[in-house]
C-alpha cells in the first residue's frame, strides 16, 4: 500500500509534466487546426537548450526555463513556416506528412549535433525528501508541480485577460469568423503555434530534470503521449487536455506497480487505444475547431 501511494505521487508528478506537454499540444492543434507530429522534437529541443544553459550558467533554473521556452518558440516558428503556412487549404494528410518529415529532420540533426548517447542532466534541484506519513515526496517533485501550476495559470491568464488570448481563442473556434472581425489569422496561428511549442519546451526541461537524463531520440514517445493526453481532452480543450495528461501519468505509474517498468509506454498507448475505442471524442464533446 505504501508503494502504491508513492507510485501515485510519482504518477501525479509525471502527469503534471504530461499535462504541460498536452496543454502546449492542444494550443497548437486548436490554433493551427492541424495535427502535428513535431511536438516530441520540440520537447527534446527544449530539454537540450536547458541542458546547455545549465552547463554555461551554473544551476539557474529560471534562466533554464526562459531559454528552453525561447528555443522551442523559435523551433515552433520554423515548424509553422515549413509545415503549416502553405497547407491551410490542402488535404490534411499533406501537412501531417510534412510534420513527420520535419520531425525526422530535427531528430536526426539533433543526433548529429548533440550525439546519439544519453546525457546525464545536471543536478539543478537538491534531492531532499519530505515524509508525510508513509508517503515521501522529493523537493524536485514539488518544484515540478509548482512550475506546471504556475505555467498553467499564466496561460489561463493570457487566455482570459489579454486581447492576444481572446484572439487565440477566436481563431481556435472559427477561422473564417475571426478573419471577418479583423483578426490576422495567419499571424495569430503562427504566434499560437510558437506559444504551444514554448510550453512543450518547458515540459522538456522538467522531464529532463525529473529523469536526470536526456537523449536526442527522447521525443518520439513523448510526442505521442502529448497527443494521447490531448485526445482525452477532445484535442483542442486546454483544461481537459491537462486533466488527460494527469490521467496518463497516473495510469503509467500505477501500471508499473502491477508489472515491470519496461511496459511503461505500453500502458500509455494501450490506454489511448482504449479511450479511442470507448470514447473517441474525449472527456467532453465540444463544438469548435474540428481536426
Amino acid at each position: 500500500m505504501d508503494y502504491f501511494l508513492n507510485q501515485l505521487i510519482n504518477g501525479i508528478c509525471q502527469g503534471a509534466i504530461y499535462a504541460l506537454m498536452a496543454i502546449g499540444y492542444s494550443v497548437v492543434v486548436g490554433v493551427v487546426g492541424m495535427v502535428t507530429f513535431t511536438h516530441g522534437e520540440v520537447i527534446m529541443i527544449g530539454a537540450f537548450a536547458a541542458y546547455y544553459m545549465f552547463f554555461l550558467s551554473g544551476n539557474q533554473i529560471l534562466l533554464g526555463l526562459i531559454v528552453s521556452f525561447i528555443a522551442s518558440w523559435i523551433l515552433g516558428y520554423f515548424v509553422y513556416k515549413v509545415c503549416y503556412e502553405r497547407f491551410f487549404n490542402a488535404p490534411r494528410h499533406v501537412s501531417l506528412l510534412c510534420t513527420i518529415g520535419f520531425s525526422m529532420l530535427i531528430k536526426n540533426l539533433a543526433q548529429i549535433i548533440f550525439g546519439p548517447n544519453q546525457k546525464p542532466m545536471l543536478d539543478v534541484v537538491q534531492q531532499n525528501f519530505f515524509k508525510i506519513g508513509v508517503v515521501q515526496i522529493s523537493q524536485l517533485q514539488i518544484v515540478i508541480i509548482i512550475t506546471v501550476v504556475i505555467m498553467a495559470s499564466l496561460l489561463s491568464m493570457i487566455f482570459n485577460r489579454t486581447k492576444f488570448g481572446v484572439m487565440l481563442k477566436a481563431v481556435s473556434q472559427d477561422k473564417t469568423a475571426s478573419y471577418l472581425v479583423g483578426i490576422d489569422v495567419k499571424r495569430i496561428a503562427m504566434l499560437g503555434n510558437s506559444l504551444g511549442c514554448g510550453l512543450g519546451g518547458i515540459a522538456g526541461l522538467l522531464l529532463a530534470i525529473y529523469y536526470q537524463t536526456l537523449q536526442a531520440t527522447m521525443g518520439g514517445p513523448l510526442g505521442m503521449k502529448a497527443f494521447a493526453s490531448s485526445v482525452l481532452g477532445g484535442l483542442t480543450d486546454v483544461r481537459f487536455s491537462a486533466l488527460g495528461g494527469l490521467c496518463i501519468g497516473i495510469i503509467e505509474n500505477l501500471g508499473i506497480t502491477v508489472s515491470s517498468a519496461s511496459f511503461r509506454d505500453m500502458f500509455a498507448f494501450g490506454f489511448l487505444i482504449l479511450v479511442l475505442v470507448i470514447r473517441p471524442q474525449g472527456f467532453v464533446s465540444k463544438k469548435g475547431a474540428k481536426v
Partner: protein
Amino acid sequence: MKRDSDYKEKTTLATIIATCKTTNIARVVKYFVTKYQPLVLIAVVLFLSVIPLFTNKSYVLGVFCRIFLYSILAGSLNTINGYSGQFCLGVAGFFCVGAYSEAILSTAVKMNFWFILPIAGLITAVIGLFVALPTLKMQGIYLAIVTLGFSEIARLVALNWTSLTGGPMGIKGIPVPEIFGFSIRTAKHFYYLYLIMAILFLFVTSRVVRSRIGRAWMSIREDQLAAKSLGVFTSRYKALNFMYGAFWAGIAGAIYAPYVRFIDSTYFTLDEGWNILSMMIIGGQGTLIGPVVGSVIVNYLTELLRPIGQWRLVAYALLIIVMMWWRPQGLAGASNSIVAVKGDTHLRKKTAAKGVGV
C-alpha cells in the same frame, strides 16, 4: 518589318521550346511504356532474372533483395494509404508480427516454410483487422495514431515477452526454406525468392485494384461520403483494405526472417516505419509502380550515402518535405486523384477574396 521578324523569331523559339517540352525523354519513355506495356514488363523481368548470372557478389544481390523486400512493404502500405486514403503509420508493426510468426512457427513448431508463409500473412491480417475495427468510424488522424501506437506496442511485446520471442536475445537459428529438398540459402537463391514474391505481390495487387474491390477503395479515397451514398460499404471495404495491406506486410516479414536467420526487436523500430513511409511518399502514392520507384531510390541512396551515416536520414526527411511542398503524390504517384492536391498554391486564387486559409 523588323517587328515582324522579331515576332516570328519569338514564335519559332516558343515552338521549339514547346516541342522540346512535349518530346522530352520522360514523355517518350512514358509513351513507349504505356503502348508496349506487356513487352516492357517481360523485358524488365527477364533483365532482373538474369542479373545473378553476371554478378555473384552477395553485396549487390543483397541490395537487390532489399529493394524487392521494401517494394512489397512500401506497396502494402500504399494499398492502405495510397489506394483507400486511410492513414496507416504502423507498417513496421505488421512487418514485426509477420517476421516473429515465421520465426516462432519455424523454430518452436518446426513447420514447413511454405505452410508458414500464408499462415504468417493471415495472422498479420487478423491483427490488422483488430487494429482497424475500432477506428473505422474515425477520421484519418486517429487511425494514424492508433497504428503508430500498435507498431510500438508490437515492438515492446516482442522485446518483453521473453518466453515466446526470446526478448532482447531475439530468435536465433531460423531454418532456411526448402523446396523439393533444395534449400534456399545463398544470396542468389534469396534473390530469386524475393523477386518472385515481389512479382507475385505486384500481380495480385494489380488484379485487386482493378477489380470491384479496388474501385471501391479508390472511391473511398476520393470522397467517402459520395462513395457511401452510391452504395459502397465503406467500413467493410476499409477493414478489407487494412487486412490486405497487413497480409502482405506479414508476408514480407515472413520472407525476411529466414533471410537474416536471426531477428530481434531492434529491426522493427519506429524508424523502420518512417523508412518505409518515406519510400512510399518519395516514390508515389496510389499507383503500383510508385512504391517500387521509392524503394529503388531510397535503397540506392542508402548505399550511396552510407559513408556519411546519419546524414542520409536527414536527406530522406528533406526529400519528404520537398515532396510535400511541390509534388505531394510523389514521383510516380496518381496525378489525377486527391493525393495529388497541393497546398495553397493552386487554391490561392479561389480563396484570395476570402483571405484566410480555412
